[in-house]
Structure formats: C-alpha cells, structure tokens
C-alpha cells in the first residue's frame, strides 16, 4: 500500500504549494496578505471556510468516535455545523462590518483599550496553538499507519508545507488553497464511501448487518450522560464563534450581506460533508471493530477502504483518503497559522510583511514542538476541549461586544480571564486527575456548561460595576457594526482605479 499512499500524500502537498505560488502573483499588498483585500466571492470564500474548518477532528475524528461511542458521537458533527448557525445569527454580518482584521483588532476598536487588545491577542494565540496540536497529532498518526514511516515525519511535513505556503502567498493564495482543499476532502471521503456501499451492495455483503451496526453493545465507551452531551453541544455551538481562523475569513467578504450569504453556503457544504464520516463510522463498526479496542479508532477512515474493498481498488482509495486527510491537516493548520501570524506580527512586528513571515514560522514551530512532545488523544475529543476554552473566553467578549452597549474594557478582560482560568484549570485537572475525581470528573472534563455562563456573568457584572468607563466611541462603533451598507454606494473590490 505504501507507494500509492505516498503518491497521494505527495500530490496533495505539491498541489498545495503550487496553488499558493500561483496565488503569489496576485498577492501584492498588505491587504492581500492579511485578508485577500476583501475581494473573495461568497462561493470561493465558503469553500475556503469549509476547507479550513474541516480539520483532523472532522475528517478522522468523527468516524473514529462513532466507532467507539456510537450514537453519542453524532452530536459532534451536529455541534460543528450548528456552531456556524450561531455564527450566522450573532456574529457574521456585524463582524464583517466592524472593519477590523483580527480578533484583537475587533477588541481594540470596540473597547477602545490596549490592555483588552493584548489579552485578546494572548488568548487567540493560545487557542490557535492548542488547535494546531491535534492537527499535527493527526498527521503523525496518518503517516505512521499508512506508510510505516516514523510518526514525527507527518507533523514535520505539515508544518513545512504550511510555512512555505503561508510565507509565499498570505491570505489571498491561502483562499485558493483552502477552497481546493474543501472539495478534495469531500471527494476523498465521498468516493470511497460510495464505492464501498456499492461494492457491499453488489456482493450482498452486510452494510449495517441488519441494524446490528447501530447496537450500543458495539460501543467501547459507556453511554454519555445527558450532562456531557449538553455541555459538549454548548462548547461546540459557542466555541465556533471564537475560532480565530474562522473569524478572519469573514473579513474577506465584500460586505455584511455577502458575509451572511457565505455562511449559509458554508452550512450547506458542512452538512454535505458530514454525511460521509458518519457512513465511514457505521461501516467501521462492522469492518474495523478491532481499531476501537486497540485505541486506534481515529484510523478508521484510513484503513476502512482496504478492509472493505481488498487489494487494488482499496489501495487507490486508501491513497485518496490519505491525501484528503493531509488536506485536512494542511488547510486547518495553514488557516490557523495565517490568523495567528496576523495577530503576532501586528503586536510584535508592527505588521510588516517580513514580520508576518517571521510570525508565521513562530506560529507553526511552537505547536510542532508541543505535538512532538505529547501523545495523541482521541482527535474529536481534544478539539472539543479547545472549543470549550474558546467558548469560555473569546465568545462572550464577541457576543457582548456586538450586542450590548454596556460592555467595558475592564468587564471584557475580567470575563476572559475568569473563563480562561476556570476552563483551563478544569481541563488540566481532568487530564491529570482522570477518573480519580469521582463525580467531578465529568464536570471538569467537559466544563463548557458551567464555565461559559460563568464567563458571561463575570463580564456583565464587572461591566456594570465599571459602567462609568464605557468607551465614548460606543455609539459610533455600534452604528458601524449594525448599519447595513448601502446598495448603491456598495463597495467594489480594491484595485487599480479604472
């Protein structure tokens, strides 16, 4: 299987670099670099958002989780998708209209405060790093399972390709790369899934084994409690609102209305995509049950084509799936690196393109070190943890900042700090203490259900206490966030004047 897989893997990496080099030709200004000068059309942008968002957790993790925990796992893709619904409802258009480039820019503009900006920057960088690490774990796992090469090669390849593409083209070329990678990922799951179903159907082999595939007896984990499912959904719904690589994409829409249209398309693309990991997961419950007990559930997607289809055809499809998996690691990582580099370079290097490139290297190197030094956990689970952290920190600042005039800089800082402190320590305590914590284990492992309301409460209370320090600019900012652009003075793409 190694040659075909290696070709597939290499092809994805080369295509990624090529597209970004092509993009370099049209990437001229700082605006191109950071936000593609806001000239990206909804379909392109939506594909790019889909490409960026569907990470290792979606591509490998969902199927693996279905294998291990059955129906409870279906809440993950629902949460990932519905998070975008929340984004559409509460954030998309105002955020686009804010005119800021990054989350810290938004915080600074809305709260008129340097400290608030700095706290947001620190959180964004932390979240980005935490999010990149599972991608690199996924890459390591993929390379180890499919090629037999040492695991670190996978993580290193992803980081090198990402740094090359980001340094080459910035946001503009990344948009093309990401859009390409959404469709690649969809193909890489859809084709093998359809093939497998057709083959099994033609052979009269069991597809669901008369429904036995759905039986909870196949689950390796216990059924999740109601608390865990609710807390998970809260984390995923609200966590999406604060993801830096997702938010930076909204600035590339021409206006607020386009931002909404883009989000609706994204929802369609995500809904379509998630059908396939689910099919893989269900088939896996019959054809690869050994992976669940062996702690390698995340490899289900990679190994299933060969288990189902056998030799030749299976090899080709395995190559396709591996390529798709790499597209997932590359696109999410590069999206994160772009947004982190944007933040870091502005805060440390005054926003020059050279600074952006240095920052890109920094943003990718730190998580690489962390990924090499730690072991992989279930991918979907660790991404879920990052969502909980985001939901407890960035999300309240963003929601209250957009919809509540009363938010003050002190309130935002206090809320973000409180959310980060309790959510972070809960996750660490759960990881260290494990099951020894008894009834608290679940509360700590999946803290969103209480840490998100807590962060909101702290933010509101402190804002009320410091109400005399409301930024004087708040009316102007609110008008900018919410007033629609006029149709006839609608903004046209920047470029040489006609």
């Amino acid at each position: 299987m190694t040659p075909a897989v290696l070709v597939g893997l290499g092809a994805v990496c080369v295509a990624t670099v090529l597209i970004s080099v092509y993009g370099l030709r049209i990437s001229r200004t700082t605006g191109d670099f950071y936000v593609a000068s806001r000239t990206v059309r909804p379909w392109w942008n939506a594909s790019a958002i889909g490409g960026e968002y569907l990470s290792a957790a979606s591509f490998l993790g969902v199927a693996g989780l279905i294998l291990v925990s059955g129906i409870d796992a279906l809440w993950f893709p629902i949460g990932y998708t519905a998070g975008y619904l929340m984004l559409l409802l509460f954030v998309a258009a105002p955020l686009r209209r804010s005119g800021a480039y990054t989350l810290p820019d938004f915080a600074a503009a809305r709260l008129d405060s340097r400290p608030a900006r700095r706290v947001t920057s620190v959180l964004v960088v932390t979240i980005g790093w935490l999010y990149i690490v599972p991608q690199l774990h996924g890459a390591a796992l993929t390379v180890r399972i499919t090629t037999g090469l040492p695991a670190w090669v996978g993580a290193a390849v992803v980081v090198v390709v990402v740094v090359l593409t980001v340094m080459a083209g910035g946001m503009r070329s990344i948009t093309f790369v990401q859009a390409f990678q959404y469709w690649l990922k969809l193909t890489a799951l859809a084709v093998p899934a359809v093939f497998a179903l057709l083959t099994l159907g033609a052979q009269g082999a069991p597809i669901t084994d008369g429904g036995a595939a759905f039986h909870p007896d196949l689950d390796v984990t216990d059924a999740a409690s109601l608390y865990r499912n609710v807390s998970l959904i809260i984390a995923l719904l609200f966590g999406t609102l604060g993801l830096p690589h997702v938010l930076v994409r909204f600035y590339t829409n021409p206006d607020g209305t386009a931002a909404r249209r883009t989000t609706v398309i994204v929802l369609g693309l995500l809904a379509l995509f998630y059908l396939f990991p689910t099919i893989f997961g269900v088939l896996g419950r019959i054809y690869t049950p050994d992976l669940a007990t062996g702690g390698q559930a995340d490899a289900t997607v990679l190994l299933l084509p060969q288990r189902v289809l056998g030799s030749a055809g299976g090899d080709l499809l395995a190559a396709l799936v591996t390529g798709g998996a790499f597209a997932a690691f590359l696109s999410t990582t590069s999206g994160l690196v772009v947004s982190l580099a944007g933040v870091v370079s502005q805060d440390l290097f005054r926003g020059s393109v050279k600074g952006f490139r240095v920052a890109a290297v920094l943003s990718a190197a730190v998580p690489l070190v962390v990924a090499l030094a730690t072991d992989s956990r279930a991918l979907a689970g660790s991404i879920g943890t990052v969502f909980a952290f985001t939901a407890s920190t960035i999300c309240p600042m963003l929601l209250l900042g957009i919809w509540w005039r009363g938010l003050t800089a002190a309130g935002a800082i206090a809320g973000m700090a409180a959310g980060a402190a309790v959510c972070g320590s809960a996750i660490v305590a759960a990881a260290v203490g494990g099951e020894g914590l008894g009834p608290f284990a679940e509360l700590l492992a999946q803290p969103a259900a209480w840490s998100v309301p807590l962060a909101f409460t702290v933010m509101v209370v402190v804002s009320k206490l410091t109400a005399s320090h409301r930024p004087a600019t708040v009316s102007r900012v609110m008008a900018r966030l919410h007033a629609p652009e006029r149709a006839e003075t609608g903004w046209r793409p920047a470029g040489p004047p006609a």
Partner: protein
Amino acid sequence: MSQEPQRRPPARIRVTAPRTRAAAARSRYSVSRELAEQSELGEMFIRSLMRSQLRLALVVAGGFGLILLGVPVLMLLFPSINGMSVFTVPLPWLLLGAGVYPVILVCAVLYTRAAARNEDRFRRLVDDDRSSRPAWSAEPE
C-alpha cells in the same frame, strides 16, 4: 486608512500595515451610517435595528435549540422510537445523523431573509429622514 486622500489614484506602494489602532476603513462609510452616527434620531434607528436583529437571532436560535433538544427528549419520552428503523437504520440515528442538517439549513435561510428585510426597513427609514419629511410620518412596514 481614513478619508480618501484627495482623489489621487493610490500608487502601488511598498507593503506596510499602519493599522495597529484598527480604526479601519472609514472611507467605506455610507450616508446612512454617517447619519446614524451623528444624530440622536440616527442612534435611535440603530438601536431599534439592533433590537429587531437580536430578537430575530434569538428566536431562530431558540427554535433550533428546541428542535435539537426535542430529539433526545422524544427518545426519552417514547422509547418505542428507538425500535423504529428505516432500511435497518434506527430512527434516532437517522434523525441525528442526517435529519438535523436540513433543519439547520432552513433556519439559516429564513434568518438571512428576515435579517435583510430588517436592514431594508432601516435603510428606508434613514432615507425618509434625509428627504426632509418628518421621520415619523413614514408608514411602518
């Protein structure tokens, strides 16, 4: 970054980013925004636009939340649902694995339309206000 510098076509410049203060893109201000910012009446328009947009978002989110919550609640209340299946796929799997997504899409489309309607209403209000007619003579749509 601020107002367009005196109509000179922007020359292709060496890339820099003087935007740490993030007071970005004022040049894109529309008339309605300028107005909304400067007058008390404008601020009132903005407040009412925000209220209606927020109410809309909360209603859609609440509706979706109820539907989402409805699935496990139905399963708890009527355990017989767990026994039903379509082509061997149990109903709960079908609902959670596929059925939820069209609901999400419908919510998204409905919201987008309604939000655009709210904004149209705001635009018309502001326009009426500018064309010297008393703002409150505008018929509510």
